[in-house]
């Protein structure tokens, strides 16, 4: 009896904690929005973050995209061959990339690369009192640190996603046509036939939302770091875990709404 009540107690506490955290992230989002519309925007800081989140993630995103497309083509081929429908491999790869894998894998990669870096960077700034120093010098830390990162996330993840979509389809093509011997004309024709503009655009909207999620959570975790170097490590891990989970869960709901 006692143990049961303790368990319920703990469960309740953890639910409360999570709800509270969600609320804090939402409040942070609102304050980011309110600072975003207050000029002057720190353009130099935004571009610096865009370079970090976007340009420097190209390599890892292209690599992920190409191999995902290749694997999908290979797997799809073995499945479709049973029904003599190998010609559908191209459209499967293209639909899979544009709708789901492009946005999700890109944002997961960016989470691992840039989201974690955001948490670590802001976490370090927090524990070395650099964030306090900003406040003291009448420079709002949300405006200086978080707004550029969130803007960079929202703008860059979709651009990375379109690159991932494209190289993924390209990867599928290189496996499908020369290696597996699917007719190249049919491969391309089926892609253009089954993939809609909406598939691509909805995928990009998803990517923008994921970009928001990963940058916001990365910044939130970093911003609220406490406890020295260990705290920074913890914040980084938590940021990656929470952002990845949030991306996957929100992906389900976004898919349910969009398609």
């Amino acid at each position, binding site marked *: 009896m006692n143990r049961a009540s303790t368990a319920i107690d703990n469960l309740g506490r953890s639910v409360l904690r999570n709800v509270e955290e969600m609320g804090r992230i939402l409040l942070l989002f609102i304050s980011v929005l309110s600072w975003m519309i207050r000029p002057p925007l720190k353009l130099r800081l935004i571009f610096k973050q865009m370079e970090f989140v976007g340009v420097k993630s190209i390599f890892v995103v292209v690599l992920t995209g190409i191999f995902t497309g290749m694997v999908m083509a290979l797997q799809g081929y073995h499945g479709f061959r049973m029904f003599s429908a190998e010609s559908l491999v191209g459209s499967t790869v293209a639909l899979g990339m544009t709708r789901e894998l492009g946005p999700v894998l890109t944002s997961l990669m960016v989470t691992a690369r840039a989201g974690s870096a955001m948490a670590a960077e802001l976490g*370090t*700034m927090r524990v*070395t*009192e*650099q964030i*306090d*120093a900003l*406040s*003291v*010098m*009448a*420079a*709002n830390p949300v405006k200086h640190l978080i707004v550029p990162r969130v803007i960079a996330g929202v703008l860059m993840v979709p651009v990375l996603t379109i690159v991932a979509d494209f190289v993924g389809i390209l990867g599928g093509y290189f496996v499908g046509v020369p290696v597996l011997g699917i007719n190249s004309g049919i491969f391309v024709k089926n892609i253009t036939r089954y993939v809609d503009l909406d598939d691509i655009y909805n995928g990009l909207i998803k990517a923008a939302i994921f970009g928001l999620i990963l940058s916001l959570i990365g910044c939130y975790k970093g911003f609220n770091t406490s406890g020295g170097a260990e705290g920074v490590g913890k914040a980084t891990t938590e940021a990656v875990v929470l952002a990845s989970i949030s991306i996957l869960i929100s992906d389900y709901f976004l898919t349910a709404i969009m398609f």
Partner: protein
Amino acid sequence: MIKIVDLHKSFGKQKVLDGVNLEIEEGKTTVIIGRSGGGKSVLLKHIIRLLKPDSGHVLVDGTDITKLNDKDLNEIRKKFGVLFQGAALFDSMTVGENVAFPLKEQTKMKDSEIRKIVADRLRAVGLTGIEEKMPSELSGGMRKRVGLARAIAMHPEIVLFDEPTTGLDPIMTEAIDNLIIDTQKNFNLTSIVISHDVESIFKVGHKIAMLHEGKIVEYGTPEEIRESRNPVLVQFLSGSTEGPIKII
């Protein structure tokens, strides 16, 4: 100048400040001493409202800063300069950019003017011509001095020093102490220094306050403090393990 009235603050169940009352005199250096983790830094953060108290007031020139909105708070903060414990230089900026930061944020000065002030402040702390270095290339003592240069860049009225000599060798400690005294005189500052370095305390302080268990237990000139019979002070100054201060 600064008046702290019945300040309370607890984190969770732990009471850190339990009714602090303290008046800081203008144009003097006040040293707040106490054990590590005894709430000195917390008290300091309340003075510039990096933390909000549970109850109590902090009056700066008669204004209660615990109730200000962001805009008015920023105005008050312009009177302050802060030297943080680890100097808190921005890693992503050069030394020059660090010192120039408050000037760029809060004033509309031209770049050439800013450069002049930066050079001047760096000279004041004895570091000429290191504007292009990154903070990671500097030693601990140099970082502290750059931090001080940044703190006085805006020519503030009040400068807060959070453990300025912690982690420095005796020679550098001596140098920093001298720097605190010099800048206080040259810029006619009201300084608040937090420290537990007994030698420095008596050297730089015009007034000394002892914070113990969330309260100011003793306040006076260095002479008064030295002769105080308060067992807490006696134990703290002698560095004894026996006494009212418990070692946990």
